[in-house]
């Protein structure tokens, strides 16, 4: 049955339209926003809401917290509003009823099954072991990744910064190995992105891309697209100076 469902899912296409709301409009559309605000405080929310389209195609919201790899996701689906604290261990999902009374549901993850990838534990270890550094995102599906690897490594060497290379989670290991071999790139291992922190930071939108980190914290937003060596140097230096 599951195979049947998978086959159908792969064939399926559909269209469903919703109005595009700004994050503020989306927030204001929630009936239970007072309760959501309380949860935000309890969960240590930081910064502004960002828009997010749910699996069902409705508008939702994302906000980071003061804990590594802990993100708040607020959604409305089938008329039911929910606020979820996503973290590597579990999802704490509060489901609101019509009177905004919340019920907490816990969903356990099993992140550690993917030992070959870069999960949040490995990522945090990297961030804690180095005062500052670079997280490089690459894909064998993007030709410019090879140039980015070469340029970022050169700049990192000059600036004495470590680089953690994280691969497109949707790319095939075999294609990735062929890509690295054909371009004689020995310094990069095939390690797929399986970090919640990186996913919610839009790390899968474009390759190559990079983040910088300092004192155990990723600084700012992702930098997508190939740059020249000098712009890599300027951007990395500027970000680390903040």
């Amino acid at each position, binding site marked *: 049955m*599951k195979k049947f469902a998978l086959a159908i899912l792969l064939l399926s296409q559909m*269209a469903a339209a*919703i109005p595009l709301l700004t*994050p503020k409009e989306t927030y204001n559309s929630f009936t239970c926003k007072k309760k959501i605000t309380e949860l935000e405080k309890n969960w240590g929310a930081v910064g502004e809401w960002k828009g997010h389209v749910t699996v*069902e195609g409705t508008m939702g919201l994302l906000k980071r917290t003061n804990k590594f790899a802990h993100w708040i996701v607020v959604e409305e689906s089938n008329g039911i509003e929910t606020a979820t604290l996503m973290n590597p261990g579990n999802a704490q999902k509060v489901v609101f009823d019509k009177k905004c009374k919340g019920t907490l549901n816990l969903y356990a*993850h099993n992140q550690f099954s993917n030992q070959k*990838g870069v999960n949040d534990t490995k990522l945090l270890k990297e961030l804690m072991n180095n005062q500052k550094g670079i997280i490089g995102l690459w894909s064998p599906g993007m*030709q410019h990744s090879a140039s980015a690897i070469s340029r970022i490594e050169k700049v990192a060497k000059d600036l004495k910064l470590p680089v953690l290379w994280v691969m497109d989670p949707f790319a095939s290991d075999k294609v990735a190995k062929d890509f690295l071999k054909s371009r004689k790139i020995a310094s990069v291992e095939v390690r797929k992105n399986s970090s919640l922190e990186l996913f919610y930071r839009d790390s899968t939108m474009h390759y190559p891309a990079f983040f910088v980190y300092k004192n155990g914290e990723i600084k*700012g937003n*992702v930098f997508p697209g190939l740059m020249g060596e000098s712009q890599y140097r300027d951007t990395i230096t500027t970000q680390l100076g903040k």
Partner: protein
Amino acid sequence: MKNTIRFSMLLAVSLNALAQDVPAECNLRKEPLLNDVSLRGRTPDYFFKPIWRTGPSDTRDEMSVIIEGANYTMNMRDGSTRQIPGPYDGVPTPDGQFIVIPTMNFLDRNGVSMGSQMINENEEGRLDGVYHSLGVLNTVPGPAGSKQVTYRGITDTSTGGSNLMYKEYTFKISGEGTKTLLSTSGEPKELCSNLGTSIKTPILSKNGKLLSAYSNTTGTTIIYEVVQVGGRSECRVKKDMGFATSKMEFSPDDNKVVFSMNSLPTTPSAVNWYAQPPQDSHNMNVFTYDFGTNDLTRISNQTSGNAYYPSFDSDGRSVVWMSQQVDDNGDENYSVRRSRVSDGRSMDFVDFSKVRGCDLTSPNVVKLMALGKLWESVCSQNDTKMSASALGTMSLAMTPENCRNLVNNNWENFKQSTGMAEEYIGADLGNNGGFTDEDSAKYMQMFTALSKADVLTTCTGGAATPTPSTAAPDEVAAEVAAPAAPATGASPTVSSCVGCHDGSGEAPAIPFDKPAELAPFKKQMLLQVMTGNMPRMMNLSPQQREDLIGYLRSIPDPKDQKKEDDE
């Protein structure tokens, strides 16, 4: 959530995909995919652009793709490929005349091959950089079918230390299609000089006057207007999407954009959504955004693998994208898919999350739910139960003929089957659906009272073009006689209004079944529909909305009606 996705899948399922032992009436409408061209086991790069047609007589259907480190054109009809110059990024111009490879080398699209020469080979002041895109600024017709076309090309020249740059190129294209570079705007100039290096992965719109890009400052994708201020190019925010997307392509009229973005479920339900992508449900899907209507529309609905790197076709009515499928062994296969943006049937999606003030225990919703449950009972091959929204919208996924056959052949057995009542309410209509015990009791009472004729009234086929009925005369009579059925001659879309406006719920009662009494509601209904506020239970295609507005306009004005009554 999972079940709603499953409904989406059902809506789109291919007729032949159902197992052989399932009755023919279970078959749903064909999915709106226009093409699904396999890349025959090859792994593409993430570059992928349709080569637009040069005019109505141009019947070519080709894509510009990168496969295993080289540029190709691919025939969308048979999947055959032809290698062309360059290792990457063969960007077609919006008028289909050129394929432009880095560093702004123009290749004549006609007969392009590995031996093709660059038309601007001797150009001075090259526009270097990556992520180039082009718009058509101006086309001036000349004698004997010739024309002069001016293109604006942009690149991200961060490789040289600055940011976005642009340059303009004027070509003469003869009536026979011969192309000559007449002039350029000279040395490259800075684009969006007010934004510095904060924007990345830019794409120019087809008329060269808009730009989509990711802003590192906001962490979102923004659409800018490109303007000239004091002789400098500046970019002003037209629309901040509020979230990050993939690179964003424009439609031919620049009124829409298409992009892909992540789906990140928050209920993993025993799957490990981010640890083993893309086998799990964390994946990317294709969306369009319409500046005019502010509608965000999901075009693809893959829940495994990805749908990404989309572009519009030259007619602006369809979208092509790359589809990645992953089999049980984790092996990947890729294909190029094409779907209409505004397919009348594919748009028949009832988004229950937007239904406010609609009582799920209203008679028509109960009927729709019953039909859904009947389909699930007879036809579904899946282990999990369908959600309320899936059940309630099954009629939209069925042809009227199959719907009638399903009801006529199975309703009585279904209704009499043991345990049917418990099955009917199900978990999805319980806590998850926000049902109280009182709701459930009312619901069951109404369900138990349903007759076959009642359920047959749901077989309208949503907003689809009506097909000739093959039902027996007495069944047709039953449909027409059913009290809640929309009046003959009404817009088929009106059927979706009945469920909420029959007076049993919070929505105001409107007598859709009595067209003669609709006049007092005309103005308000038109206002609601024309402003897009209604109908809430379905997302209409432009044609459907036009039909519905036409129908509402055809209702006599209250004053006219008074006159008629007086006469």
